[in-house]
């Protein structure tokens, strides 16, 4: 097995490089992605190697980045759009929701809207406003789209390639606070399918589901809980839409208790959907109501206090205590 250690940023860069080498129809487009290599350097060096026609430094207009990717898709190109930050995706919202999501249907299948819209999301980097948001529930709710999020360098390397090869449009949410953390990357075999959830840690008392940057916090919470004698099974959803609910249900049948962790506010969120689906499927196995540990229902706070907004180990453990202490 050929594995190598790299950061998530490098893994994404290598994944993009490999996809571009494999398919000449793959283009990258976004703001500052060429000479600069992107504000997070995810596309570093790719314009030098693949040229300005394939790594397109775009004018600063998100609706146009996505809208022109639609036209390129009609022409048979697969564009990977980079949205610089989560809070900047909203100018493109109309193109994503009204065009990207619907044109395959509207054309009775004649158009493939094969494209990937990369969005660095979630907080934790101490940025100013609009740079730390979790917009994934908006897209998860939209029929025609698929939404995924890697949490490790290995997933980043493989999921970006699987997304580019997929024929439906993919909203690709990158946990920007994890860009610089290293991990093992297997260069030969993908860890799973693009829409598969994975059990990251086995346990017997509580099922803890998360995605993106929340995974690291969830795993830390599981370690702490283990010391205190509670066995937590940690599941990385990986795909937010569609959800791999089978893997979660199988775990819940075993534990009887579920907590979902996410950075978005909890109303109408991915966590809401996970708990609703699991309650429906596993009602008689439940020992406690499912709980969500989320961001609060406020605009993302100034980042001096963001760690009191984002789910922490303590808040996750508090929810674990509550589901463990629940008596019917």
């Amino acid at each position: 097995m050929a594995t190598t250690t790299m950061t998530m940023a490098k893994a994404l860069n290598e994944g993009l490089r490999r996809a571009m080498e494999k398919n000449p129809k793959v283009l990258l487009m976004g703001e500052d992605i060429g000479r600069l290599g992107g504000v997070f350097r995810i596309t570093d060096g790719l314009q030098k190697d693949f040229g300005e026609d394939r790594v397109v430094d775009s004018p600063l207009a998100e609706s146009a980045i996505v809208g022109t990717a639609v036209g390129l898709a009609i022409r048979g190109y697969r564009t990977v759009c980079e949205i610089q930050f989560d809070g900047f995706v909203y100018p493109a919202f109309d193109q994503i929701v009204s065009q990207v999501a619907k044109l395959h249907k509207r054309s009775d299948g004649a158009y493939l809207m094969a494209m990937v819209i990369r969005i660095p999301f979630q907080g934790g980097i101490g940025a100013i406003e609009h740079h730390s948001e979790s917009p994934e529930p908006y897209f998860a709710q939209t029929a025609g789209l698929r939404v995924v999020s890697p949490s490790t360098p290995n997933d980043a390397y493989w999921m970006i390639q699987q997304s580019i090869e997929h024929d439906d449009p993919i909203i690709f949410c990158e946990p920007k606070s994890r860009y610089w953390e290293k991990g093992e990357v297997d260069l030969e075999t993908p860890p799973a399918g693009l829409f598969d959830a994975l059990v990251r840690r086995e346990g017997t008392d509580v099922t803890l589901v998360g995605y993106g940057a929340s995974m690291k916090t969830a795993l830390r919470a599981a370690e702490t809980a283990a010391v205190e004698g509670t066995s937590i099974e940690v599941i990385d959803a990986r795909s937010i839409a569609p959800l791999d609910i089978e893997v979660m249900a199988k775990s819940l049948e075993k534990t009887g208790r579920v907590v979902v962790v996410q950075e978005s506010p909890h109303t109408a969120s991915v966590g809401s959907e996970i708990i609703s689906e699991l309650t429906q499927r596993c009602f008689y196995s439940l020992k406690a109501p499912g709980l969500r540990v989320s961001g609060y229902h406020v605009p993302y706070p100034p980042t001096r206090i963001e760690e009191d907004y984002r789910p922490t180990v303590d808040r996750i453990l508090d929810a674990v205590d509550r589901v463990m202490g629940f008596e019917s």
Partner: protein
Amino acid sequence: MIDEELVQLLTPEGERVENSEYESTLNGDEIFSFYRDMVIMRRLDNESTSLQRQGQLALWAPMQGQEAAQIGAGRALAPMDFTFPTYREHGIAWCRGVPPENMLRLFRAVSNGGWDPQKYRHSVPTVVLGSQTLHAVGYAMGIQRDGAEEAAMAFFGDGASSQGDVLEAFVWAASFNAPVVFFCQNNQWGISTPSTVQSKIPLYHRSHGFGFPGVRVDGNDVLAVYEVSKRALDSARVGGGPTLIEAYTYRIGAHTTSDDPTRYRIDAEVEVWKHRDPVERVKALLVREYKVKNADFDDVAAEADTMALKLREDVLAMSRPDPITMFDDAYAAPHPLIEEGRREMIDLGISGGEL
């Protein structure tokens, strides 16, 4: 009356006009075929309005008054060009070969599109204003990467010209020198909003601020629209970059069959524009210059009537789709929620379809 820079080759009375930049290259047979297209489109347009009034269509967006703008541009296109329409481009769809009954599937509410856009190289209608201009620019960027001598043509109206997407499309087309022609039909009204509210300058002047040429053409003069469109498309195909064409015309009818224009505009204005009718001026030219006989005009009218009758039959034959078809092509690849929805619909007996 309008702008001194307006390109016009044929007056409303059907007399030829000298223009320093453009001259008509069409022969009598070609002009007659343009006339035929316009008559057929007017007839089908009227038939569609009738079908809506009789409860057979959910809605119709009439194009009366804009026949020359659409046939002139549509006939200037080459087969390999690709067009991006709104919901009113029936004349363009006609020129691209889309069967008329397919144009009405959207309005019969049996489809959200209606035809195979790759087959006709004519995209499906975009209802959200201006979105398609970006699609055209992106498509044009694909043409550049393929090294093809083709062009994309984006259609929109004076109302959509205020949309951010249209202005972003202008920026991108200029930045990448994309082979795209922006064809704006200024029909003077965005439902009840006059074009003067959309722009304080002539719309075609806008392109200058973005760094590419703009032309205002008499949108009711099919000869002029054809020449202006052809030159812009020819230029785009060989690396000349984008052009904005403002076809200055008028929406004689309502915005759609749900609209009542008597609430916001005066009859006298409509009467003025009826005197600039795009079909009559070509007919006058054909009579005077090419001695076309009444019998030939009658033949076209009869042909249009026959097509209208067929259109009516085709529309009435469009039945309610099986509800389970709503799941078709929602995604290109298998999706668990699609399977779940199909299964539920079959279990509940809503559809006779099969999984």
